[in-house]
């Protein structure tokens, strides 16, 4: 079976993602620490406010002109405030509204009370990071907002990639359900080969009219490299890595997901199931070969990063090549 459905995805996650690791990725600060320790680029942390006493003594005036504040255990972008400059008596939010220091303090209080965090929490910490500004090569595709990249990895093998491009309709949010464009990326060169808006295939960005098919993402090799390290760093055998490309800092992992969605298959017009089977077959073959010389437990093969990742990547690439060419062929007659 080539499509990965919910049932099989859940079974895969139950087998490959230990509970502790799943809980771990819900905490943004701890996740960043772990990723950084494995050499994964993440946004720097300006402050972590973990208690009311810390909040009371925190010197807000020393915050930079542009920053992001969010609940450490937030979800769905709830409670994220993005600030882009100073104004009289406070800061200016990205949407143009004014944020006074009093409002900021009130927001921190709400975050600390757990009001904006994952269900079941009654306390949380507030995380403050520098504002990420999209790399110009990437930013030219979208009207405003922060486009991101989602890469699904099985262990250290990247399986499928897409970028989510905000639109005017999505209000600048990189969320497919809210009307952002999803664009499939070719692993070999970081070029977009298919794009969808809702159920419909599109070739240009609906808000900017920028041509999407064939557009190449900046720092693609670094992006894939960063994504591949996340599984090992976090102990997740199956993980959806969300990355952004910062104008000055380059590739940054924003978030890792232990239950990545399946919509990426519709964006790519391809199934994850076939690729997972291919990778697992190769892992088993590899494990059998090493068992000939050395004793290697089979059960670990599914989790361990392994040397032949390159071969698998190449195979996945070759498998996709035909389809990519097909997707590219469609706009040609339109242009002619």
């Amino acid at each position, binding site marked *: 079976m*080539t*499509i990965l*459905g919910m*049932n099989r995805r859940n079974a895969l996650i139950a087998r490959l993602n230990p509970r502790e690791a799943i809980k771990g990725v819900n905490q943004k600060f701890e996740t960043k620490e772990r990723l950084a320790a494995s050499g994964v680029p993440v946004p720097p942390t300006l402050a972590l406010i973990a208690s009311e006493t810390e909040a009371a003594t925190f010197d807000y005036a020393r915050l930079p002109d542009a920053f992001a504040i969010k609940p450490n255990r937030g979800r769905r972008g709830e409670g994220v405030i993005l600030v882009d400059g100073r104004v009289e008596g406070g800061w200016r939010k990205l949407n143009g509204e004014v944020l006074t220091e009093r409002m900021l303090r009130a927001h921190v209080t709400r975050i600390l009370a757990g009001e904006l965090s994952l269900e079941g929490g009654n306390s949380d910490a507030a995380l403050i990071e520098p504002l990420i500004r999209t790399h110009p090569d990437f930013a030219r595709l979208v009207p405003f907002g922060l486009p991101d990249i989602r890469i699904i990895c099985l262990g250290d093998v990247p399986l499928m990639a897409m970028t989510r491009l905000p639109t005017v309709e999505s209000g600048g949010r990189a969320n497919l359900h809210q009307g952002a464009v999803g664009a499939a990326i070719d692993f070999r060169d970081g070029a977009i080969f298919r794009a969808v808006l809702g*159920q*419909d295939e599109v070739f240009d960005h609906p808000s900017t009219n920028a041509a999407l098919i064939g557009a190449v993402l900046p720092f693609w090799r670094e992006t894939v490299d960063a994504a591949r390290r996340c599984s090992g760093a976090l102990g997740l055998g199956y993980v959806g890595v969300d990355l952004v490309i910062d104008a000055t800092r380059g590739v940054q992992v924003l978030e890792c997901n232990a239950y990545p969605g399946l919509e990426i*298959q519709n964006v*790519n017009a391809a*199934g994850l199931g076939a690729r997972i089977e291919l990778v697992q077959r190769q892992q088993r073959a590899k494990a059998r070969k090493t068992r000939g010389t050395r004793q290697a437990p089979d059960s670990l093969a599914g989790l361990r990063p392994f040397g032949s990742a390159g071969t698998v990547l190449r195979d996945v690439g070759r498998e996709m090549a035909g389809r990519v060419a097909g997707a590219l062929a469609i706009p040609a007659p339109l242009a002619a």
Partner: protein
Amino acid sequence: MRSDDLRLPGDIALLRTGYALTAVIAATFGAIVWTLFDRSDNVVTSTVIALFGDPSRPWDLPGMHLLLVMPMGACVVVFVRSVLGWKTFGLFTPMLLALAYLQSGPIAGPVISTTAILIGMMAVPLLKSLNLSRVGFLGTLIAIVVSALGAMALEFRQPALVSAFPVVVTALIVERWWNAFEADGPKKAVRMTATTLAVALMIQGLVAAPPVVWLASERPLALPLASIVLMIVLGRYQGLRLSELSRFRAANHGA
């Protein structure tokens, strides 16, 4: 699928039929509620009784039956979730709702609990504006639903129609509905409510069917044991869900 802004004549006809159907269902529903609580003889009540029989008749099942068919209800829920892929509130809410139906009667059950849900839905925005805690909210909601139904029952001298269990299950559904409404928007929330009610109706129809009732009285343990086996099989199902066939059409096209 087409974009939403494309309105073809077929769509418009479909929409009109939908509205008409909704109106008919709403009218029938209202008439049944009326008949349930007002037993005096008039055009509405006699039409309803002629059409559906006495809507307040109970199921008349032995008490043990309710317990024995519970696993069967659970089985239906497992099937609906992992094979059909329909989204319902909570895990076993449809099963609880169906049990509530069994306690109140084939028509009175669904109608009363739906009425209670509608009352609760109207009360929720009001309660939300009071900024209550989660427990405070739920407690008040239960109280409001009980008061509204109780008032109706007393006003029309039908106290036997309203029992505690269905009302509590109903309040839970209203709370879930509100969570879904806030998280996924009105469309999805309405759809999930409708699916939950439909699955509950399915379970009611199944577990009160004559062969099931007969089996429960003749071979009491057969049903729970069969349900266990079936649920183990269903629980291991890893194929696509029916709903995913259309969801992943685009992915399938390329693959």
